[in-house]
């Protein structure tokens, strides 16, 4: 048996190696920085990498480890989606608009992870302002899927997902407004979790759609996600929608031994919404999901049908609300105080128009315009208010479903990663790919995606688990038990994640 290279072991193994002084945090950081140097040019997963800054953090972590003051993530490298503000570091949201913006402050998540001693490797590429499902709308160019160059990694947190899949970072932060953690996790064959709305502070996370945005965690396994999620969660008085409840130790919870080791998920009821298996779901994805459900049954879970009848309204409701909020959230990017400003303009209005037309990409402009339209006088009731009603219906669907089951399971996306540019000029076609993920954000529920197979082209397929509010531990435990008896999460894209830098 060959030992896995250090860049491809669980965070718990890195922890042991650091604590046993088998490797220093600086060495570990250099290992990943070298891999970024070697493989990022092909993937374009990172927008900003600052080796010196990373090494300063790693040296501090080493001192802390030497003092025996290390926490679970002290000295562990990670990557941040470039939507999180990082003090003194470029924070672009993959937009020309913020291509010159060095944040003067840290997002709450960033400061929590800094305090935990985690070492930031850099900022990852994404869809511009998190608007997209493919990471193709970035001002810094599209991200490639490590499983197949020329294919998308999913989005909007595509850079973080690709980085973790290619082992350019052991774990990474992301954000999920309509599936932006779960779908790229599925496309890149890794595990990603978006917790209950309010569990992770949004302070310093550049807003796309405030009522839907939520931070999330990427890792190779549920175990790695559990460690990262515990470090990201926690009440923050600077975010009025942040929930004041104690932080759970998810890693400890998933490590709790099952009472019946042969059937570790006995007593768990998994609901399968028939609406998630209708027209549009790819056959290979469908088959892999069925196989995974069979595996869950084998683990002792009972699987039953449930209904989420309003699923078909999720996409229109989601896009109306998300675009409405986005049109307002992005108004602050006006060229007045920071960010991009057009060089030539006639007057104030012209300065606004040119700065925003030149600073925002096409998809962002489309969403701002659509959002402005749906909030306009005379249209508000027909669009925004109707969407809010649908949102309540969708939440009600889940409430009913969770009276019959503990978790809901289904595909994370109807298809696997598509080729770059394949969606062409039809934005709606891409919006429709968010059919299984957007209902979860509309309801504010936690959702997790873990790998469960591959299509014929060798592209990963992800299973989505949806839990009731604050059931993150249950979601992670289910995925962890699944991963203890399967090896989908151990597959790596060749040659990248197999090769040394």
């Amino acid at each position, binding site marked *: 048996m060959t030992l896995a290279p250090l860049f491809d072991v669980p965070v718990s193994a890195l922890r042991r190696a650091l604590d046993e002084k088998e490797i220093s945090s600086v060495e570990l950081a250099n290992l990943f920085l070298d891999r970024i140097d070697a493989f990022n040019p092909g993937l374009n997963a990172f927008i900003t990498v600052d080796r010196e800054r990373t090494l300063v953090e790693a040296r501090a972590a080493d001192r802390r480890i030497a003092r025996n003051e290390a926490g679970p993530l002290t000295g562990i490298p990670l990557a941040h989606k470039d939507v999180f503000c990082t003090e003194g570091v470029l924070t672009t949201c993959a937009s020309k608009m913020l291509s010159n913006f060095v944040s003067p402050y840290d997002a709450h998540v960033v400061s929590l992870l800094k305090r935990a001693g985690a070492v930031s490797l850099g900022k990852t590429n994404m869809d511009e302002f998190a608007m997209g499902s493919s990471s193709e709308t970035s001002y810094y160019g599209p991200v490639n899927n490590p499983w197949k160059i020329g294919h998308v990694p999913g989005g909007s947190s595509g850079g973080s997902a690709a980085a973790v899949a290619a082992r350019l970072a052991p774990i990474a932060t992301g954000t999920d407004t309509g599936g932006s953690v779960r779908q790229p996790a599925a496309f890149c064959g890794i595990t990603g979790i978006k917790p209950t709305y309010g569990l992770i502070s949004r302070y*310093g996370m550049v807003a796309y759609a405030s009522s839907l945005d939520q931070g999330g965690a990427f890792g190779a396994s549920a175990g790695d996600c559990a460690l990262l999620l515990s470090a990201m969660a926690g009440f923050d008085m600077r975010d009025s929608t942040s929930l004041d409840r104690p932080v759970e130790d998810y890693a400890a919870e998933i490590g709790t031994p099952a009472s019946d080791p042969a059937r570790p998920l006995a007593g768990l009821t998994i609901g399968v919404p028939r609406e998630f298996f209708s027209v549009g779901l790819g056959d290979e994805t469908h088959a892999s999901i069925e196989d995974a459900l069979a595996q869950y049954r084998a683990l002792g879970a009972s699987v039953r049908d449930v209904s989420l009848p309003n699923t078909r309204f999720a996409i229109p409701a989601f896009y109306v609300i998300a675009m409405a909020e986005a049109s307002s959230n992005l108004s602050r990017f006006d060229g007045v105080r920071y960010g991009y400003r057009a060089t030539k303009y006639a007057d104030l209005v012209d300065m606004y128009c040119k700065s925003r037309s030149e600073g925002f990409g096409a998809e962002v402009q489309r969403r701002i315009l659509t959002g402005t339209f749906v909030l306009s006088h005379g249209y508000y009731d027909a669009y925004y208010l109707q969407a809010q009603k649908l949102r309540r219906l969708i939440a009600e669907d889940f409430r009913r479903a969770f009276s019959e089951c503990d978790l809901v399971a289904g595909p994370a996306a109807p298809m696997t990663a598509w080729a770059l540019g394949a969606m062409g000029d039809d934005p709606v076609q891409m919006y429709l790919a968010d059919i299984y993920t957007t209902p979860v954000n509309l309801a504010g529920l936690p959702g997790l995606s873990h790998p469960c197979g591959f299509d014929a082209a060798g592209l990963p397929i992800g299973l989505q688990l949806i839990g009731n509010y604050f059931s993150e531990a249950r979601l992670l435990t289910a995925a962890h038990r699944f991963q203890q008896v399967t090896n989908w999460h151990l597959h790596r894209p060749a040659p990248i994640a197999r090769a040394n830098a």
Partner: protein
Amino acid sequence: MSRSDWEIVIGLEIHAQLNTSAKIFSGASAAFGAQPNVQASAVDIALPGVLPVLNRGVVERAIRFGLALGSHIAPKSVFARKNYFYPDLPKGYQISQFEFPVVQGGIITVQVGEGESAYEKPIRLTRAHLEEDAGKSIHEDFRGMSGIDLNRAGTPLLEIVSEPDMRSSAEAVAYARAMHALVRWIDICDGNMQEGSFRCDANVSVRKKGVEALGTRREIKNLNSFRFLQQAIDFEAGWQIETLEDGSWFEQATVLFDPTTGQTRMMRSKEDAHDYRYFPDPDLLPLVIEPGWVERVRASMPELPTAMKARFEQELCLSAQDASALTTSKETADYFQAAVAAAGTVHAKLCANWVMGELAACLNRAGLEIATAPVSPTQLAGLLLRIADGSISNAIARKVFEALWSGEGADADEIIEREGLKQVTDNSAIEAMVEEVIAANPKSVEEFRAGKEKALNALVGQVMKASRGKANPTQVNDLMRCKLN
């Protein structure tokens, strides 16, 4: 047709800056007058990723206001975003309340005019809602450019919206003054109009008398003095009437008042009005006010002017006019009550006379506010007690008051003692002076005895002069009459 055939209809929107030390959604200081942008936090300048957090002190002030006007305090109200672009509006939207304001309804009864023609008028409130102020654009100091000062961005405002219940500029001014007094009375706003802490927008329309439908209104923006409010409404109403009388018309618009010309001019028409695209702010939870919170605020409320006025009439036997005058401002009422407390309630009328008389006149001459009056309520009470017990006359009291005003003594007794101003009430001493005067003025004595009543006054005056004003005038009068008869 003439002007008297028309009825003027006015509704006011008042922006009162709430006197919290921090801003409404950030911890930055809301104090006035700092160097540009030093009081603008990350939230105030709307950096990417920042979020608003509601300052509960602001809500408490809104509750105080609602309680003072008998309004409905909404158990749940909602902050909304009002979207528009302007360089001094950092987020590109203002957080305000739209569909669900925190204060709903209410009424205030105001005194319009003075003297014989004075009347009381109840004015209904539509609503009062919380919102943040914008920053300031400074166009003067930079050639070809504008400066932006974001210190004011995020300062808390209560926008107080009245029903269109006012029918003259006098009523509008009376309402605005009453609101101005009230917000200071309940200590939610400093009322400083020069610094913009209290400013009015007036919605003005006219209609033929007897017509029920409201005419087309024009809104006069940003009036920051009561005088401008009156001038602007008078000009605007006159202009509207003239325009309509000429057979012409005008459209709904927003106008500005130019104090130098005394005229209003068009700012933007209805067509140019923004579509603000209001929607609930997803960064803020609905504002929930539990009944217990309202009750705690109610318990901390000061006695309100109307209640205090009634009490002054009943308990202190003051006239309605006196009671009204003494409750026009919290400071005046505080001063008066402190003076009464020191002098005793039996002397309330005397206190009232002096507070509204000598004290008010001196303050006016010196351009001082009553809260900083050089003569304290206790000092005034000490002085009034000496009038009441006959130690000094009113005339002497005014001299003592002047001495107190210029700090020539700690209290009235000290000054009276030092200056020897105590009224002479010793009968023998006065008798001696009377006899002296009678001896020295045989002509006047003769005249009096011949039936000329007036001659007596001259003789009494001589005694008073001899006593340097200190002799008790009643005693002098009695003794003189007695000696001459």
